[in-house]
């Protein structure tokens, strides 16, 4: 009988913090921007430049630590990790090895077998590297330091996960918590959340973990799932053929669906960590810790309870909306403007989710503003547009956050409320369809529907069907 193998997976998750400025200098962290336009002597490693820590980075790191049930180190400091690479302007990365800010936490995830606790080994603060772009023309690399010095936290889990499903559940839980904290937008596609997978296999029932590899360059949940399957198979094949798994870092190639070892002989893998003498240690006092604890935002459970009390919307809607911080924020902000929770929920649960799914987007990618959604709801309420037109306007809003009031005017979509104009059209329709008039007279109710449809068509949809119905009946009864 074939041997059974168990997979043990630990994750190193890098999260870009939502600070306005970099971790050690006053450069903007805004995404995009022409190369090297968000740089200064500090984040480009100029001689004589010195780092000064952004206080907000500590606030966010502690907040995430508290949310993941970690012990917050009262005394922590930064260490230099020394290695040469062009994306690292000082040729050392400022990180934390000896005294990370958070340790020994856990995150609970839901699995088919019930709730499972994934241990958090530590969370530390560090700086991001710059970006390397391959210049094929001149066969060289080009270096952009806009991302250099953007603050990261690295959340290191214990090797507690056993399947790709658990890994995804863990990542989704982390993402939701961190988004709720406002500590990061956690966009995998923009790289503001990145996961490296440490994976080993062992025979089922074995005590000791096998030799692990570290997989990098995983840019989507799909890539993570596939990389886990491939690496598990690769390691099992090695073991079955009597070979050893080498402890190494591997790079995932999603297009080829395979990974390769990254090590070169010029990488000594000896980072010579030592405390950075340019930075002062961090001391998190009781008062500071209490302050961060007190300003922790409402988490999902609390939010759901509040929604049940405050908003008359179905439990199912509450579940979906609170599952995503951006969606919940959008919901609350729109309700605050228009005061109609049920209608807002309908737009989110219906058209919004439909379009997100259709376009393969996440709620954090939504561009329309709460103000505009509220305006659209207002347009429907006042009868200025009917629901069919409203859906058309919403699609435009979803694509580019247009102002629905202006859009409706510009496109001439406002419903005709002038009863005289409507009556004229209705008279034309009645005159052109004598058979339907006869049918109506003979008690065929369906005939009115046909006439309403014809009138709506003549009005190019810009009429309230109810009003059309009433006007037609009046007309026919008068005849």
């Amino acid at each position, binding site marked *: 009988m074939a041997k059974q193998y168990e997979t043990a997976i630990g994750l190193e998750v890098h999260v870009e913090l939502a600070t306005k400025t970099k971790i050690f200098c006053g450069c903007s962290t805004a995404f995009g921007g022409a190369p090297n336009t968000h740089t200064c002597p500090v984040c480009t490693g100029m001689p004589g430049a010195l780092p000064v820590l952004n206080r907000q980075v500590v606030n966010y790191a502690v907040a995430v630590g508290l949310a993941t049930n970690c012990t917050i180190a009262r005394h922590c400091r930064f260490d230099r990790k*020394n290695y040469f690479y062009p994306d690292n302007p000082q040729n050392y990365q400022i990180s934390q090895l000896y005294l990370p800010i958070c340790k020994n936490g856990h995150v609970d995830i839901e699995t088919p077998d019930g709730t499972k606790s994934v241990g958090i080994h530590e969370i530390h603060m560090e700086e991001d590297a710059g970006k390397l772009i391959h210049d094929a023309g001149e066969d060289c690399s080009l270096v952009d330091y806009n991302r250099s010095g953007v603050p990261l936290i690295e959340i290191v889990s214990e090797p507690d996960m056993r399947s790709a499903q658990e890994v995804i559940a863990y990542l989704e839980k982390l993402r939701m918590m961190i988004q709720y904290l406002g500590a990061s937008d956690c966009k995998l596609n923009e790289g503001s959340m990145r996961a490296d997978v440490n994976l080993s296999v062992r025979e089922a029932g074995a005590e000791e973990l096998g030799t692990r590899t570290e997989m990098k360059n995983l840019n989507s949940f799909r890539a993570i799932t596939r990389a886990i399957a491939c690496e598990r198979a690769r390691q099992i094949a090695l073991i079955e053929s009597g070979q050893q798994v080498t402890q190494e870092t591997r790079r995932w190639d999603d297009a080829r669906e395979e990974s390769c070892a990254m090590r070169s002989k010029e990488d000594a893998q000896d980072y010579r960590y030592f405390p950075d003498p340019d930075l002062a240690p961090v001391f998190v006092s009781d008062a500071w810790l209490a302050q961060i604890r007190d300003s922790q935002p409402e988490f999902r459970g609390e939010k759901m309870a509040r929604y049940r009390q405050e908003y008359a919307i179905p439990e199912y809607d509450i579940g979906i909306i609170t599952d995503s911080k951006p969606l919940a924020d959008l919901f609350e902000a729109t309700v605050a403007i228009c005061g109609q929770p049920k209608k807002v929920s309908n737009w989110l649960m219906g058209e919004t989710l439909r379009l997100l799914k259709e376009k393969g987007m996440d709620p954090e990618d939504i561009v329309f503003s709460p103000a505009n959604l509220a305006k659209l709801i207002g347009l429907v309420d006042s009868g200025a547009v009917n629901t069919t037109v409203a859906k058309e306007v919403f699609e435009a809003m979803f694509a580019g956050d247009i102002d629905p009031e202006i859009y409706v005017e510009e496109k001439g979509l406002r419903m005709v409320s002038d009863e005289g104009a409507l009556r004229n059209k209705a008279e034309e329709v009645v005159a052109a369809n004598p058979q339907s008039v006869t049918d109506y007279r003979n008690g065929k109710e369906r005939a009115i529907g046909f006439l309403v449809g014809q009138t709506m068509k003549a009005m190019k949809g810009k009429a309230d069907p109810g009003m059309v119905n009433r006007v037609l009946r009046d007309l026919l009864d008068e005849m």
Partner: protein
Amino acid sequence: MDILAYSAVELSAAIREGSVTAVEAMEAVLARIDEKERVLNAYVTIDRERALKAAAAAQEKIEKGELTGPLAGVPAAVKDNLCTEGMRTTCSSKILENFVPAFSAEAVVNLEKAGAVLIGKTNMDEFAMGSTTETSAWGVTRNPQNTDHVPGGSSGGSAAAVAAGECFFALGSDTGGSIRQPASFCGVVGLKPTYGTVSRYGLIAYASSLDQIGPLTRNVADCAAVLEAAASHDPKDSTSIDRKRVGEDTDFTAALQDDVTGMRIGIPRDYFGEGLDSEVRSAVLAAAEVLAAKGAVVEEFDLSLVSYAIPAYYTIAAAEASSNLERFDGIKYGHRAAAYEGLHDMYKKTRSEGFGAEVKRRIMLGAFVLSSGCYDACYLKALKVKAMIKKAFDEAFAMYDLILGPVAPTTAPRLGESLSDPLKMYLGDIYTVAVNLAGLPAVSLPCEVDAKGLPVGLQLIADSFQEKKLIRAAYTYEQAHHKEMR
């Protein structure tokens, strides 16, 4: 009066009174440079045009009453490891041959705000690693007192320029004695402030936890004035200290008092043992007697751990240097090898061509002491010894206001004498490095000259933030010594 005979503070007073202009002062200094520089080689870069323009601008501000400080209009030199915006800054290294910083070091900014006028950049040991200014990529600097001898180092260019009248004062940096020892060898005043007193922003780091910028001047009054102008609490330097918050201000000129009555001065017996030149010994002890005669209470004591300071210092300094100098890689600035095969070959060729032998020696040692097998036994051990040394000083300062001793075991060696044996050169730092490990302030003062006509330096060390005690004692000694010399 000969302009060059003024001290910095006297010159500024004369300029402000209108008897001299800042431009005349700069012209006098440039003329002296023309006369001396061919032999001395104290400067790496001299920017005459900029210096004269800046002098004229300073003069205008003085006349308008916008510049009134004690350094207004005074021509000054800056060590070449301090960044100067728009002026080449090389650390006397080939690897930074054409590097032009986009910003000035905070200390330079502070001096310029006070009205000092920059002449140029002074020569130094490459990346401040050395005690003779012979490891400079731009040739040795000679000692103005005797040009067959070294000026000391690493701030040898600054010390020589001050001693030769090629500037009125200079800034240097001191990681293990690099201000005090060249000041001693060239016969000028050099002060290393308490760690954190002068911002390190813009100082190209050698060993970040030990580096400190300080003045090299013709006398103690200038020293106090320059330190007062250079010191600041700088939010750009996380290790900069707000001295007001620790109850110590920076009005150092207020300490220029001719009075040491009741001041307790300890002389460590360990500083007068084997290896100390007898002429240096007697000169320093004579200076102690001068202070005693002025009313100080002078006594000998045992300062422990003296011989362990050097190995601890070289471990820590080399470790930090190995990391600090990683940024010189041929990508962002400075030298890049012309031909290479791939990334790592480029790094290796660039750095091997760009760094001199002493720098390579220290960064290799530093990489080794930080490597996985050695970190605990070498690096952490040295930091523990540093803690013990600090404690030994704390105990000493519980008993004494100041510690008095020599700066270096000998006067300036002949050119070429030191480099052949690096370890022996390192041993010459025995009286200076412990001060950096403990973050203390210390001053080097000229006392006597030896039989060869070379100056002997006297070192006074104070507890953290007690620069004013140093300045008071130094000023008192200077006054008495001048009287004696007359």
